[in-house]
């Protein structure tokens, strides 16, 4: 897969500024990402979780995915990847256990079919989602159940050739918002609106919509991605872990 045009090789010591959201992507099936190196930095509970996967491919993706998250957080907080510690909020959203001198890093991650995306901000609540575009989703039936009435009307106006992409633009945008909220499914997916027509600007309309900004991005060929973060005054920087590891 050729990289999308905006994903760059990261600097050795990336700095996360207040007005930035950093996205990193990693292809978790890449042989260039050392499995042994990342297995060594996992905590005991993460190794135990890795051991629960039935298939070696799934286990390896988890190890690489978690190891890369630790490595990136270690770069931002200037500590070894193995020294990064997580805490979990009541809904299960992981957060970084911060020391007094650490920057207030927030993060969120998503993966789909071997592609992981990590989102980082400085103090802003943040959520991201990535999905492989696939045609085995019964689009109209799912849309009727999960989309708002406005989204459903927009979806029905799409020509057949844009429906798969439109579906996943909507899905990733909604998931990113729910993950930023961190409240699980206590907010029904039909209770807020996102735009979904390919090529049109991404919008989010919700009861607290002024709190957030939604951006879509291209994680790679055949994938859709979205990120939602607090505030209006931030820009995106896209880093490619896989190119950094070569």
């Amino acid at each position, binding site marked *: 897969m050729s990289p999308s045009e905006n994903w760059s090789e990261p600097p050795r010591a990336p700095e996360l500024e207040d007005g930035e959201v950093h996205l990193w992507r990693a292809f978790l099936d890449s042989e260039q990402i050392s499995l042994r190196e990342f297995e060594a930095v996992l905590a005991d509970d993460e190794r135990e*979780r890795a051991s*629960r*996967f*039935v*298939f070696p*491919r*799934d286990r390896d*993706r*988890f190890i690489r995915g978690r190891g890369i998250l630790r490595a990136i957080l270690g770069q931002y907080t200037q500590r070894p990847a193995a020294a990064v510690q997580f805490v979990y909020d009541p809904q299960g959203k992981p957060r970084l256990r911060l020391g007094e001198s650490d920057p207030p890093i927030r993060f969120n991650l998503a*993966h*789909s*079919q071997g592609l992981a995306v990590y989102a980082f901000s400085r103090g802003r609540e943040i959520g991201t*989602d990535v*999905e*492989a575009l*696939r045609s*085995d*989703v*019964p689009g109209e*039936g*799912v849309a009727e159940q*999960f989309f708002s009435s406005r989204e459903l009307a927009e979806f029905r106006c799409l020509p057949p050739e844009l429906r798969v992409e439109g579906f996943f633009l909507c*899905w990733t945008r909604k*998931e990113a918002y729910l993950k930023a909220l961190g409240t*699980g*499914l*206590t907010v*029904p*997916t039909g209770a807020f609106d996102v735009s979904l027509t390919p090529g049109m600007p991404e919008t989010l309309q919700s009861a607290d919509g002024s709190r957030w900004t939604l951006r879509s991005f291209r994680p790679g060929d055949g994938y859709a991605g979205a990120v939602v973060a607090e505030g209006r005054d931030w820009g995106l920087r896209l880093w490619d872990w896989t190119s950094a590891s070569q």
Partner: protein
Amino acid sequence: MTANEIAHVVVDALTGIAPEIDPAAVQSSINFREQFDLDSVDFLNFVLALHERLGIDIPEADYARLYSLESAVRYLTEKASAAKPSGSEI
């Protein structure tokens, strides 16, 4: 339907969305997403398959109860019992 029959439907729905899964390998009390690399769309297809096969409406707020085989069987058995007509016995 008995709990055993519902368990078969749940495993069948799971292997329907991920055919590589060996039904015998599914561990009852462990979250499906900790055993198999399922994404949110896989999970959505799983929920829709359960709805189609069992005819049970599953509100979004209850999705967390479908995360493991044990929990899903308990939840779906409750829903199936609640939906069954109570008819009087002679």
